């Protein structure tokens, strides 16, 4: 009995140790390197067969080199950026050591490296890989390296999101090639008026959070309760930003409009859902992607100075008249964010009094969600110039907004005071512009 157990466990220990060795030795990247080596050898052999005498010596040398290529872990290093990226253990074509041309000729090889100027401008020995592409550079399996795992918050950025990485260093990214989506995102950001509520590194609206370091937001700070079927390994900032633009934000961040989440209802304050207007209604998926791409460039991570490219100086804009100037002011301060482009349609403000709300269904979220910010084209005409200036000066505090459901939450959006931001000539130009878009009512009364 003991003799049997003695042998059984001895062999079990030995067997498991061998198994550990086999598991350890069997690494995903080895297969990819062998595949690359095979393809390289067969390509060179093919070329050698049809080569003339002049080319033969160099091809033979290349073949010899290819055959001698060791199967080993490789990494691209950028000590300046603290990046040690083992991506090149699988993506061999792009490794300047094995392939000085940095071009992988094999269309059928999964790691075809693009022969693009961006790669040449950012050599791997200075930038490594993950500084732009993100992902987990230290990892050597596909899932881990591409960041498609829990506990890794920087997933591999694919097109178009990778353009967000250009934004991180290139203050002048709008002037370089290959950043079309980021550029489009920035333009959209201004056009739909994000800056009216969100600030950007301290400058901008005060209604919502600062987006200047939004790309750094840790996933654990985010409430993923209402993101539907998003699997845990996809819970990263990219998806969080994009969902704000492709989903109804009331569903994403529902708040507690009825004040139900405390044990004692009497002490419970209702909480409004996210105040972010339903931009998904206006934006195409490509628009949302472009905005997300631009946002992914918004980081506060410290980079060595020599990696930063400053923005180029812009000439002082000139305006044909005061109305055009005012329109620029309207865009600059993001008024469109709440009042719609050109002030033509007020956006959603939960539980504010709006049109078409059914008074008999006062507690329903769908009715409260019909609350609107003022549509400027309609209301500006009811103000005198001095009254409107005062309104812009003082703003409207959240508590002064008329609620649709008096027991419901305070509407999340409000008019901030612009006193310290819009002044002098800008203010007058803005007033000129606002009165120019106001609807002229047919009959005075």
């Amino acid at each position: 009995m003991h003799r049997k157990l003695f042998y059984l466990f001895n062999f079990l220990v030995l067997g498991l140790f061998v198994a550990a060795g086999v598991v350890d030795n069997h690494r995903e990247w080895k297969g990819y390197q062998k595949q690359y080596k095979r393809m390289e050898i067969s390509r060179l052999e093919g070329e050698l067969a049809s080569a003339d005498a002049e080319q033969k010596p160099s091809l033979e040398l290349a073949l010899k080199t290819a055959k001698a290529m060791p199967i080993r872990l490789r990494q691209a290093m950028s000590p300046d950026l603290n990046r040690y990226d083992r991506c090149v253990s699988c993506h061999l074509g792009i490794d300047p050591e094995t392939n000085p041309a940095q071009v992988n000729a094999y269309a059928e090889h999964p790691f075809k490296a693009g022969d693009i100027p961006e790669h040449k401008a950012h050599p791997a020995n200075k930038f490594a890989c993950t500084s732009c592409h993100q992902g987990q550079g230290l990892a050597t399996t596909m899932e881990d390296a591409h960041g498609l795992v829990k506990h890794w918050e920087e997933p591999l950025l694919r097109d178009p999101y990778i353009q967000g990485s250009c934004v991180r260093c290139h203050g002048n990214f709008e002037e370089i090639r290959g950043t079309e989506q980021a550029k489009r995102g920035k333009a959209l950001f201004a056009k739909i008026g994000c800056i009216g509520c969100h600030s950007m590194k301290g400058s901008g609206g005060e209604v919502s959070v600062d987006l200047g370091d939004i790309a750094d937001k840790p996933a654990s700070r985010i409430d993923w309760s209402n993101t539907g079927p998003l699997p845990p390994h996809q819970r990263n900032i990219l998806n969080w930003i994009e969902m704000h633009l492709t989903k109804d934000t009331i569903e994403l961040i529902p708040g507690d409009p009825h004040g139900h989440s405390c044990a004692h209802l009497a002490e419970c304050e209702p909480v409004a859902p996210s105040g972010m207007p339903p931009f998904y209604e206006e934006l195409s998926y490509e628009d949302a992607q472009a905005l997300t791409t631009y946002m992914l460039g918004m980081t506060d991570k410290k980079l060595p100075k020599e990696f930063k490219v400053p923005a180029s100086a812009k000439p002082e804009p000139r305006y044909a008249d005061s109305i055009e100037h005012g329109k620029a002011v309207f865009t600059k301060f993001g008024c469109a964010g709440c009042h719609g482009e050109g002030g033509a349609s007020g956006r959603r403000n939960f539980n504010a009094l709006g049109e078409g709300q059914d008074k008999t269904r006062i507690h329903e979220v769908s009715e409260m969600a019909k609350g609107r910010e003022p549509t400027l084209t309609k209301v500006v005409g009811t103000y005198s110039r001095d009254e409107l200036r005062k309104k812009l000066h003082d703003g409207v505090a959240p508590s002064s907004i008329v609620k649709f459901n008096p027991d419901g939450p305070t509407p999340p959006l409000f008019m901030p005071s612009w006193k310290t931001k819009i002044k002098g000539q800008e203010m007058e130009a803005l007033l000129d512009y606002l009165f120019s878009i106001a609807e002229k009512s047919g009959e005075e009364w």
Partner: protein
Amino acid sequence: MALPEISLDKIEKEVTNSQIWKSMFRNWPWQDTARHRARHIVDNVWLHLHPAKIQPRALRWTFTWGLGGISFLLFLILTISGVLLMFYYRPTVELAYQDMKDLEFAVSFGIFLRNMHRWCAHAMVTVVMLHMIRVFLTGSYKKPREFNWAVGVILLKLTLFLSFTGYLLPWDQLAIWAVTVGTNMAGATPVLGNEGPFANLLGMTISNDVRFVLLGGTTVGANTLLRFYVMHCVAVPLITGALIILHFWRIRKDTFSAAPLAKNEEKADVWPNLVVREYIAAAAVTAFIFFLSVYANAPLEEIANPNVTPNPSKAPWYFVGLQELLVYFDPWIAGVLLPGIIIGGLCAIPYLDTSKKGIGYYTWSERPFANAQFMFGIAFWFILITIGYFFRGPNYFWYWPWESWLVHKPVSAPTWSFSLPVGVTLLAAYGALGMTLPRLIKSEICWRKASGAFLGLFALVGLWMKFGGDISTWRVVTVGVLLYLTFLFGFLYPQRYIRDLDLPRYTITQALVLMQMGVLVKMGLRLGLDVKYILELPQFNLNI
């Protein structure tokens, strides 16, 4: 040319007769005689801690379960794998996490080593606890082994501390926050911690108290990592190693096994009978650890970020029971006082329980009080761990294991405290009655009647609570169950079994029992009636 004939026998003879061989193996050639079996033990430095012969009863698997030896084996595996890991690990905040990734992805056998170290550490904590339970149940701590039991208790604490210091080293979110939770308890030490009662006596602040000494700062940071690294790799293993030597030496000196020898029973040879069992246990555990290490990876979360607190932050599993007590008690009780009492109480057991019964064999009927109280404490400890580990979610709210943590829970009801006079009266009554009643009532109490009366009385109170006080049924039942357990273990057991103990032993034993049951009473008051404190003295930061 013909090859020379090879004779294995001849070669063996040549080799074993050589001066080299004979100098290494004192006792050659081996013969299967009683004398040689004894010399195998006596002449071998690794085995000579064993006696040459042992009681047959002690050889049974079900007597010791090999738990002490397995603990030592795990300690050895941990030492070896730990030393190997030290070659790859740099204890700085910039590099520690990166080295974890390197171990997983670039180092040969790196992840295997790390897994082995991790799983062995968890296994060692578990096995050492089980070893203590086994030693208790076989009464093996009794005279002359009282001191060695105390050494064992210290070794258990050192095992926990070794595991805890190692917990920080991967420098991920799991590590930093578990250690933050754990070390925050130190800040609640009475007098010596800045948040503990009487902190102002010695002028304790966050930057000079005992927690500061432990962390090397006010928060878990670079200094903490270095301190924990040195403690984990050098200081604590040295102390543990020294105490293990002492523990083994005392085992040998206090006679190897407490198992009694039946009349006319002959002792059995340790070689091969005990040695082969020890070897098989070691091989089986090694195989189990290897298996785990091949198939399950040690956890590694995001890199440590002092600015992002996970919700919930949990201590390592063996401290989660104490963390669960934080729900019911202030940190100085849950994190300092109770652990201190547990250690002190455990060490005191052999000096309190001087009964000559049940030494060296399992018995419930000969020592019902000791077994019941001890096993109740053990069960309570593991139930608290289970609750803390599996039933607590965000904000430390109660989540069933099948409930998603993404579902928000309503905020729990507000709590209240007794006023000072009421609190003092209640505590004094609990202490005074609890200490005196079991000793003063000399007659035999019929448990069935007493339990019936207690439950009947409580049923009336419960009905009044439910309909008069509008308290939900499950709360009433919780209070009832916990109070009945207190009645059973805090009154009925002591009354029947220890009322005739000498006064010092009775006093200490009953005080320990009352403190253990007091935890239960407080839990009942909180769960059932939302009581925050029984006694509230905010001016001294002293709340019970």
